[in-house]
């Protein structure tokens, strides 16, 4: 008759404890990372049918966001420009560039270009572009510095926590009304969220709500 458990098994509790702690930490870290919008969207950078560079158009040439996304201040939806908009310039500039062939085709045949959507909130979220850009929230707050992107990239998580962060502290996100489309705007040196930010919020009567009804209906 012998002992069925070898001697090392007496260290089992310690091994289990340490192992369990390590495994638990890994699972928590994994879930936190892989199951949140940060992982699923941030950094998303699909290849678009036309290699349009915001860096050139918006950054270098300084075209205003609204030249192409002209409904952004009127609708919940920030429109993707049609080929017609592109062709306003590209009949003269790079008129025969092979890279623009899909645009020309779209323009001629009146067929839309299948752009790949980068930013998308779930369909039960009613985000409204117009009310944000008209009330001092800049594009950069949610989209990042698009004017520095060669290829558009998902740069903010756009999760509910992300939205709430701003809705709870609007004074940290609002900026003067005429700087909304200036993606490079930096608060002046004497700008303080608690002073100028709050002042702006009060002046505009900003009611950024953290109630469900603000975004879900």
């Amino acid at each position, binding site marked *: *008759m*012998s*002992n069925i*458990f*070898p*001697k*090392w*098994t*007496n260290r*089992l*509790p310690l091994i289990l404890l340490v192992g369990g702690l390590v495994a638990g930490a890994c699972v928590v870290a994994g879930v936190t990372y892989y199951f949140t919008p940060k992982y699923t969207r941030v950094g998303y950078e699909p290849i678009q049918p036309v290699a349009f560079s915001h860096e050139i158009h918006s950054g270098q040439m300084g075209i205003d966001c609204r030249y192409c996304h002209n409904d952004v201040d009127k609708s919940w939806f920030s429109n993707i420009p049609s080929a017609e908009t592109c062709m306003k310039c590209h009949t003269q500039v790079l008129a025969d560039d092979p890279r623009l062939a899909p645009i020309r085709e779209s323009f001629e045949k009146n067929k839309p270009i299948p752009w790949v959507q980068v930013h998308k909130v779930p369909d039960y979220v009613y985000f409204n572009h117009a009310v944000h850009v008209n009330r001092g929230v800049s594009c950069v707050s949610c989209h990042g510095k698009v004017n520095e992107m060669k290829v558009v990239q998902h740069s903010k998580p756009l999760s509910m926590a992300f939205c*709430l962060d701003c809705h709870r502290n609007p004074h940290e996100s609002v900026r003067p009304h005429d700087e909304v489309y200036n993606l490079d705007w930096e608060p002046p040196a004497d700008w303080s969220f608690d002073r100028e930010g709050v002042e702006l919020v009060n002046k505009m009567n900003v009611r950024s709500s*953290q*109630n469900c009804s603000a975004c879900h209906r």
Partner: protein
Amino acid sequence: MSKFAIMAEYETPAEIMAAAKKVHAAGYQKWDVHSPFPIHGMDDAMGLDNAKVGYFTFFGGLTGFTVGMTMQWFMNKFDYDLVVGGKPLFSGFFAFPVSYELTILLGAFGSLIGMFVLNRLPRHHHPLLANERFADVTDDKFYVVIECEDDRYEEQATRALLENTHAVHIEMVEDAQ
């Protein structure tokens, strides 16, 4: 193969109780009584003081209650203060049931863990578990085991001490590594 302890077997609780008193009186420290069920009065006989499990239970329970209350305050009042049913954002009343349950839950874990920690269990490998005769400890036999590592242990004297009790059998337990 080294010697682990000397083991004496008894048939009734009264006999082992008497033996335990003797061993205790002899001043041994690393020794123990093994029985299929707890014997009433044995702690006194062995000169053991009160068990310390209660501290574990208390700290478990305290943690549970604190975690419960803090969690609910944080979630319903501090982090996202949604107005619900016109009731206060935080109140000890509605937070009580959950805190109460957590008190019990962690208290229970405390007790069990306390028992294991204080008993240095689990210890699956034990020289006694390899001993054939000792298998009856969970059935109907009673044992006094005096470890060789005890300061007062001296093979002959210890064996003599045990032989002086109502032991029906005395043997040396080996540690088989």
